[in-house]
């Protein structure tokens, strides 16, 4: 509750303060605010407020943590990129705070209507963030995201209406049967699949990820997905697995892992590649939704994914000068900056799910959930596509490590960003060896 308030105040103050305070101060203020929210989320007891419309349970806590962390990380590593590309600084940070607030709101409720509110609260700042670079690509991406987002929101809204019609309630888990209810569920899921970037609704992701400013992509990949999955989880778990939506979910998982991983093979630009990888990861996370206790697995995976993809995008952010990151730009990174190369390696291998990195445990947990649910067919397909995924991650590694650079020249990293990235890298490795350390945050205790 307080965390939500802190996030709101942070955003609001930053927006107002930006009028007179120097951007530097706003930036630091936002970071402090996010840090405070993070702290509050960790220490706050489970609670409920606004007549149960805001429910801070372990899931909400975990997802909120991931979203806020994503915002904080994006804020910390983005400064250099902003300067390079001439983006005015303070809106960036303020919008991040607002969006994180939306993510938390969306995650911390069991009311479908509030989810919609959170969804919009999350998305609107994002549309602006995507457009922030003011060039053609950036604006095209923003427009696509906005329009398709509207379609998805409409689907969700329509589903909400049908759901209400069938059950007479906005709360998740309201029991009902019949075609009306089924249609409502399916539409609700469709809207959320969109946000989670799952096929056949996540078509926007590659274009938008590529066009958006790189640090924004970082936040989008991790934060938005987190919030979307929190909502998905509540909707699916609440409704049980009897209906057609379970089949729809299975189909979506299948399409997502296959499409994401295979299409990624054909990519030649790192951000776009990671967009496809993000689609694929959404598929893996969704595997856990079948399991008997999906919340900790989903939360843990999201954290692992945030750390890994966040670090990968953070590295790309340092390399990117506003024109995207074709593979060739990564060539010889090991010589330009061994530190960045090492971090990229960690991040990519963690994304590939190799132990001893945190990504392995995330995958492990969701696979366990799928196994416990007996979804072995999906599991095997997911694992096979994971092997395919290893190919494109390794190819990226190969570019960074084993090929000579096209142009000489060092890559500069700001100390604070370097510190944040180092911390994340450390977490990726440390959680790989001691996976239990943060598990309590997601399991509830």
């Amino acid at each position: 509750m307080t965390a939500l308030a802190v996030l709101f105040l942070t955003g609001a103050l930053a927006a107002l303060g930006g009028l007179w305070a120097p951007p530097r101060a706003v930036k630091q203020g936002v970071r402090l605010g996010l840090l405070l929210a993070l702290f509050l989320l960790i220490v706050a007891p489970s609670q409920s407020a606004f007549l149960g419309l805001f429910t801070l349970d372990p899931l909400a806590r975990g997802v909120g943590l991931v979203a806020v962390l994503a915002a904080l990380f994006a804020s910390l590593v983005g400064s250099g990129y902003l300067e390079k590309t001439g983006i005015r600084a303070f809106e960036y940070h303020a919008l991040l705070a607002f969006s994180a607030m939306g993510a938390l709101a969306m995650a911390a409720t069991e009311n479908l209507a509030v989810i919609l509110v959170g969804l919009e609260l999350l998305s609107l700042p994002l549309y602006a963030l995507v457009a922030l670079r003011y060039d053609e690509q950036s604006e095209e991406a923003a427009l696509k995201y906005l329009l398709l987002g509207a379609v998805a929101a409409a689907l969700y809204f329509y589903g909400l209406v049908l759901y209400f019609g069938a059950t007479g309630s906005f709360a998740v888990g309201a029991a009902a049967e019949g075609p009306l209810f089924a249609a409502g569920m399916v539409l609700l899921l469709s809207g959320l699949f969109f946000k989670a970037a799952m096929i056949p609704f996540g078509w926007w992701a590659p274009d938008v990820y590529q066009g958006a400013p790189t640090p924004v992509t970082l936040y989008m990949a991790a934060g938005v997905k987190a919030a979307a999955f929190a909502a998905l989880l509540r909707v699916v778990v609440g409704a049980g697995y009897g209906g057609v939506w379970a089949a729809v979910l299975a189909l979506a998982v299948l399409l997502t892992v296959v499409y994401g991983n295979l299409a990624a093979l054909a990519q030649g630009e790192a951000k776009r590649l990671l967009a496809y990888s993000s689609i694929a990861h959404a598929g893996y996370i969704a595997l856990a939704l079948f399991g008997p206790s999906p919340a900790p697995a989903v939360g843990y995976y999201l954290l692992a994914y945030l750390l890994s993809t966040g670090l990968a995008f953070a590295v790309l952010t340092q390399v990117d000068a506003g024109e995207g990151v074709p593979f060739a730009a990564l060539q010889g990174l090991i010589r330009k900056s061994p530190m960045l190369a090492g971090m990229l390696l960690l991040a990519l291998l963690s994304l590939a799910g190799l132990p001893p990195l945190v990504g392995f445990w995330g995958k492990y947990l969701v696979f366990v959930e799928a196994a416990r649910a007996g979804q072995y067919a999906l599991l095997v397909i997911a694992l096979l596509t994971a092997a395919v995924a290893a190919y494109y991650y390794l190819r990226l590694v190969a570019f960074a490590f084993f090929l000579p650079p096209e142009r000489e020249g060092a890559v500069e990293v700001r100390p604070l960003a370097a510190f944040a990235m180092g911390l994340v890298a450390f977490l990726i490795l440390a959680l790989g060896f001691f996976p239990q350390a943060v598990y309590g945050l997601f399991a509830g205790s």
Partner: protein
Amino acid sequence: MLLLPFLAGLVGLFLPGLARGLGLLATLASGLIALAALFAPGVAFYAERPLFEPAGVYYAVGLDGASAALALTTSLAVFLALLAVKEVPGRMLALGLLMTAGLLGIFASLDLVLFYFFYEATLIPSLLLLGVYGGANRVRALIKFALFTLAGSLLMLAAILAARYYGGAESFLLRDLLSARPEGAAATLAFLAFTLAFMVKTPLFPLHVWLPDFHAENHPSGFADVMGTLYKVGVYGFFRFAIPLFPAAFAAFKPYLLLLAAVTALGAAWIAYAQKDYKRLLAYGALSHMGVAALGLFSGTAIGAVGALFLLAASALYTGGLFLFAGWLFARFGTLELAPTHGLAKHAPALAAFGLFLFLAMVGLPGLAGFPGEFLSALGAWQASPFFTLVAFAAVIAAAAYALSAYQRLFHGPPGKAVADLSGGEWVYATLATLAVAFLGVYPKLLSGPIHEAAQAFVAAIGGGK
């Protein structure tokens, strides 16, 4: 034991200068620990701590006879390899040490997820060794290697999960899983998944194609090849996990597995003869050995299993030695093509003697380390299938052909270009390696006794006879 090489590797990564010294100390220590475990009855140094308790994963390690034997030769092989190589980057050695830690973890793990953890974790340094220090076509070799390994091991992960949730075991601890083994179709599928994974890592035909490129492209010093040789843990995986967990499925697929092992053993030895690149030749030769080991293991007999593991343990020493030997040749000629010169025995008699010794060990000459494993494998394999034994062991003829012709092409014939004989450091390695290989050949009891103990447990687990 695990920690020492890991720490040494980690330090070495950042302080390359220290890698060798620390590595020597660490592998010496882990070798001594393994030696102690070898003499202890049952499972030595057992430790069990929750690693990820809610998920049923434990850090459960211990060394029984089989794993102690493998841990011992692994430590020894790395120790010797560290002595043998010179003028290699310290970071490379550090990566090797990280790999050593992973390998020791593989052998010591008594929890299936932990095993998987080490199994895949070892891949990373291995890939880096190849990628950073490899030859011109290394990226291709690397991707092939990684994809084969991962495609197999990811399926294995599914099988690991299935093993627990179909059998209803409490955790992924091996003993829990063994007391609640899954049965029926699920077990069969799971076994197949394990089989694929371990076939890649044994390797067995037709999933071996990554191997020749892997060796051909690795750093010419041979250090990385030693590590790669050690990483061939498929046979151990079958022995420790796949077969005991799914005995019924194993029994059903036994004939096919024997067939593949026999084909690998003979085919690889045959192909080795036609190779012109020294490392490729060794790669195929080693592959043939693994086929023999697999044949021994798949016989399902205690004696065959002892043979298989003995072969696995011993080949780490002499196959590794041959790769390092290749490194020495490379240092002298700058190429790994066979027959860049001939008549070397004239200029470098000690080098020639050492090379011959290693080749003979590889050929399985009795009295050297290669023989006990091969022989016991044959004894076991015959009980399972005389025909496949005949096929597989026709490889001993082919082995003589490729090994001797490779040796003679270099060392016999009219003396060619003069090269230096063994240097001081090389003498140290050659002496120690010779002692180790000869000792295991003359007194195999050191390893075969403890392994036999473990092999009996293995046979008991699959409900076999003697």
